[in-house]
């Protein structure tokens, strides 16, 4: 399988990349790790006339601290996230989630920016970003702007990115010490997209849940924050009745597609189970 012809561009700055994207218009696509786009091009389901390879831009990689936030460059690969002791210590749920993405070869090339910006409902990072309260930095010809991850996703492959804009950084508030976390992902085999997945970040005080956020992957055309389910567990000790209530509240907002991963009812059912497991495992890790 050979992709359709295209022109290859490798700008050295974000400004040049944005200029190319806006000048070349709809027929140009930014290329990050390429592990979503290149397979689509080989199937000729994507036929961009211009590829703007972002690998030539210095400064879009790396992890840094900024006033209580962890700022990650969009071109940082999943492998680099996994290799970071800082991420493993401060944002362990990001480490846990990255390890569940695809396989080692894909993680060497695949980037966090590409994962969150593509708008694929099957990608794991978007729901995690909602759960963590992340913000995205977007750069366009008119300048930069910040947007909450919770406002970024509009539909399957539809995001708040305007034509000519690229996502350059992800900024995540550092979770408090002693928080509990878990990313539970049901998949048919290693490397697959989620049949259903849930991210949980919570804090405990005196044996009861003090704060909680729950995100859902591949259970709707966009990633979801299960607000009612999270509210249902706050103030409880996560007893069986509460877990059941939280799973039901999460299932109420799920509307997964029926596909090879299962019919709608099955995916909602296992989605509820992922929420229950993630809550239980997160609580066990909280101190």
């Amino acid at each position: 399988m050979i992709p359709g012809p295209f022109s290859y561009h490798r700008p050295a700055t974000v400004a040049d990349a944005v200029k190319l994207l806006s000048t070349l218009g709809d027929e140009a696509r930014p290329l990050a790790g390429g592990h979503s786009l290149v397979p689509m091009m080989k199937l000729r389901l994507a036929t961009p006339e211009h590829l703007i390879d972002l690998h030539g831009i210095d400064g879009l990689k790396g992890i840094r601290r900024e006033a209580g936030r962890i700022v990650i460059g969009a071109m940082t690969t999943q492998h680099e996230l996994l290799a970071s002791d800082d991420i493993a210590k401060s944002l362990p749920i990001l480490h846990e989630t990255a390890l569940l993405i695809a396989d080692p070869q894909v993680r060497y090339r695949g980037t966090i920016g590409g994962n969150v910006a593509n708008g694929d409902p099957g990608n794991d990072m978007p729901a995690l970003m909602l759960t963590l309260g992340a913000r995205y930095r977007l750069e366009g010809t008119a300048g930069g702007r910040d947007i909450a991850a919770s406002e970024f996703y509009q539909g399957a492959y539809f995001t708040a990115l305007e034509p000519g804009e690229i996502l350059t950084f992800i900024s995540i508030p550092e979770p408090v010490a002693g928080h509990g976390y878990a990313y539970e992902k049901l998949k048919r085999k290693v490397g697959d997209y989620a049949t259903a997945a849930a991210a949980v970040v919570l804090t405990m005080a005196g044996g009861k849940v003090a704060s909680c956020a729950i995100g859902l992957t591949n259970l709707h055309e966009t990633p979801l924050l299960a607000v009612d389910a999270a509210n249902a567990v706050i103030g409880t000790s996560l007893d069986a009745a509460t877990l059941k209530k939280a799973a039901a509240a999460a299932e109420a907002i799920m509307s997964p597609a029926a596909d090879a991963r299962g019919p709608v009812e099955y995916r909602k059912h296992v989605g509820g189970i992922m929420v229950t497991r993630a809550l239980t495992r997160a609580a066990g890790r909280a101190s």
Partner: protein
Amino acid sequence: MAKTHVTMKVNGAEVEGLVEPRTLLVHFIRENLSLTGTHIGCETTHCGACTVDLDGMSVKSCTMFAVQAQGSDIMTIEGVANADGTLSALQEGFRMMHGLQCGFCTPGMILRAQRLLQENPSPTEAEIRMGISGNFCRCTGYQNIVKAIQYAADKINGVEFKEAAE
């Protein structure tokens, strides 16, 4: 479409060629360089038969363009053997442990396992299995591939290899 001149290092030798931007790295390696040890399996980024080592990463060479490999340092299966022509520890492990049947996945398996052992010289069985989760074998059931990698790890570490009981 205009062709682009690319240069890179493959198995220690400087190589160059003219490619269309859409030329996949695996096609450049197989067709321009005539290094056909790197196999094309699924062509959909799943099977790992096309795995090569590129600048310290295991990559599926069917999922990047040759123009993106400009200036990079690549190793394919043709570059794996020791300088004196003897088998590398991994090649020997696959031979001794019967880590292949049809052999189609073997070049990708060995390139991936080589990088795995460089990053983690003494992996557990679970780490080996996760480490090769991007490489499919449809013959062996993986058991002997895992043993082959354990054999190579022990040989590199100077430890006597003891086959685990099944």
